[in-house]
C-alpha cells in the first residue's frame, strides 16, 4: 500500500496549561485541516478540553479513562478502530487526518506505539508529526522540574512556544536556548493570539510527504553544524537534579558506508537494552551497495519502517545519525556502532 493511502495521525501534547487545546482550536479552524478527526482525552473530573472543543461535534470521541498511557492503550486503540469503522461505513465524514490531544501529564510514547504497532491500526494509519506545546512563562521550570515535560519536548517533531504575548523577551530567549539544546532537530515556533500559525509546517509537512521529505531530513542534519554552539551561557553550570540535564542531542557521522545487517542488529539490541533512554534517533544512512540514502526514524523502542530516498540531497554522502538520549555516552554509542559495522559482509 502506498504511503499516501495511510491516514496520518498527529499527536499534540504538552505540559498542563501549556495551551494544547488553544493551539488545536486554531489549527482546526484552518481550511487545510477541514477533514480532520480529533480524539481528546480529559483528565480529572471536569472535561474542560471536551467542553472547549464541543463545536467539533461528531468528530470528537472522548476517551473514558483518565489518562492516555500504557494502562489504557487499549482504549485508544478501540477509539481509533471505532472511528475508522464509522468512517468506512460512511457514518461520519471520510476524514483524512487524525489528531490526538493528550493530557498534560501523558508520556507520548505509548500513544505513538499504539499507532505504529497495533496490528490493525498500523495497516490504516501512520504516525505524523508530534507537536509539543511549551508555555513561555512556565516552560523552563516545567522542563527542569517535571520529567514528563522534558520527555515531551525531546520526542517532538515540532515545538510550539505558547503565550509569548505575556512573557518577556528574555524568558522566551532562555526557553528557546534550552529547547534547542534538548531537541535541536525540531523546529521551534512561537505563538500568541495575534501571531499567524502555519498548519502545514506543524502538521502536514513530515517525513512521509514526498514534497517535504528532503527538507525534513535536511533540517535534522543541520544539528551537526550547530553542535559547536551548544555550550550556551546558561548551560555551563547544569544542575544534575534537573530533569532535562541528562538529556543530550548529538549527530554522529560515519564516512564509510554502513552494513545494513550489522546496523539493524546493533540498533535493535541498543533499543532493547536502552530504549527508554533513546528518546529519538533519526538519520540518513549510506548503506553499502545501496544507490540512494536510507532514512531511519525512531522513538524509544519504536522504529518506523526505513525509507529509501531516490537521491542524496547534496554531495555529502556520509551517514549521519541524530540521537537524543538520556544518560548515555555519546562516545560509547559511536564506538559501539563502528565496531558492529565492521562485522558485516560489506565491511570485509
Amino acid at each position, binding site marked *: 500500500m502506498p504511503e499516501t493511502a495511510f491516514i496520518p495521525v498527529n499527536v499534540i501534547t504538552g505540559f498542563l496549561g501549556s495551551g494544547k487545546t488553544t493551539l488545536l482550536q486554531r489549527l482546526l479552524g484552518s481550511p487545510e485541516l477541514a477533514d480532520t478527526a480529533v480524539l481528546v482525552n480529559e483528565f480529572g473530573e471536569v472535561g474542560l478540553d471536551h467542553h472547549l472543543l464541543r463545536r467539533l461535534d461528531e468528530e470528537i470521541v472522548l476517551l473514558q479513562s483518565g489518562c492516555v498511557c500504557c494502562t489504557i492503550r487499549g482504549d485508544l486503540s478501540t477509539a481509533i478502530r471505532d472511528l475508522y469503522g464509522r468512517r468506512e461505513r460512511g457514518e461520519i465524514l471520510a476524514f483524512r487526518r487524525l489528531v490526538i490531544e493528550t493530557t498534560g501529564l501523558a508520556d507520548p510514547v505509548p500513544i505513538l506505539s499504539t499507532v505504529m504497532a497495533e496490528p490493525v491500526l498500523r495497516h490504516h494509519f501512520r504516525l505524523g508529526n508530534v507537536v509539543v506545546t511549551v508555555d513561555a512563562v512556565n516552560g523552563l521550570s516545567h522542563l527542569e522540574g517535571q520529567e514528563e515535560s522534558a520527555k515531551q519536548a525531546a520526542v517532538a517533531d515540532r515545538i510550539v512556544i505558547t503565550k509569548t504575548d505575556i512573557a518577556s523577551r528574555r524568558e522566551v530567549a532562555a526557553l528557546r536556548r534550552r529547547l534547542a539544546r534538548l531537541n535541536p532537530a525540531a523546529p521551534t515556533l512561537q505563538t500568541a493570539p495575534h501571531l499567524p500559525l502555519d498548519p502545514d509546517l506543524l502538521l502536514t509537512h513530515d517525513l512521509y510527504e514526498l514534497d517535504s521529505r528532503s527538507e525534513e531530513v535536511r533540517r535534522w542534519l543541520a544539528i551537526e553544524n550547530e553542535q559547536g554552539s551548544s555550550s550556551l551561557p546558561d548551560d555551563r553550570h547544569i544542575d544534575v537534579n534537573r530533569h532535562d540535564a541528562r538529556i543530550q542531542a548529538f549527530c554522529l557521522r560515519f564516512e564509510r558506508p554502513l552494513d545494513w545487517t550489522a546496523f539493524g542488529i546493533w540498533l535493535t539490541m541498543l533499543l*532493547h537494552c536502552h530504549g527508554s533512554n533513546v528518546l529519538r534517533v533519526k538519520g540518513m544512512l549510506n548503506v553499502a551497495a545501496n544507490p540512494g540514502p536510507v532514512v531511519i526514524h525512531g522513538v524509544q523502542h519504536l522504529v518506523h519502517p*526505513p525509507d529509501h530516498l531516490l537521491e542524496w540531497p547534496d554531495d555529502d554522502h556520509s551517514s549521519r545519525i541524530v540521537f537524543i538520549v538520556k544518560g548515555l555516552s555519546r562516545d560509547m554509542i559511536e564506538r559501539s556502532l563502528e565496531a558492529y559495522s565492521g562485522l558485516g559482509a560489506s565491511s570485509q
Partner: protein
Amino acid sequence: MCGLCGVLGNEADWTHAPGVVFFGAAATWRAQRLERVRVANLILTQFGLSLADWEGTKYQLSNRTGRTEIVDNWAQVWQAAERILGRACDPLDPLLVARLERFERED
C-alpha cells in the same frame, strides 16, 4: 505458511519491513536472513549463545547447556537472550565493544 509444518511466518520488524530492498552480498531474502544469523552469532557468541535459522521462518536461540527458545524476529532475539542470561545484552558494554574491535582488527 509452510505447507509441511504449518508455521506462519511473522518476521515483522523494521529491519525487514516491506519495501526495504538492499543490494550487494545478501541480495535475496534468504541470503539476507543467513547473513543476519552469521553476524548475530559473532555477537551472541560473546555471551555464550548461538542463533540458528529455523525453516526460514523463525530463529532458534540456544545457550551452551542446550536451553533453547524459538523466536520470530530481532526484538524477540534480544528478549529471549535476556531471559536465558538473566541480564540484557548491552551493545554499549565497553568489554564487548573492545572484543568486537579486536575481532575486526584480527579479521
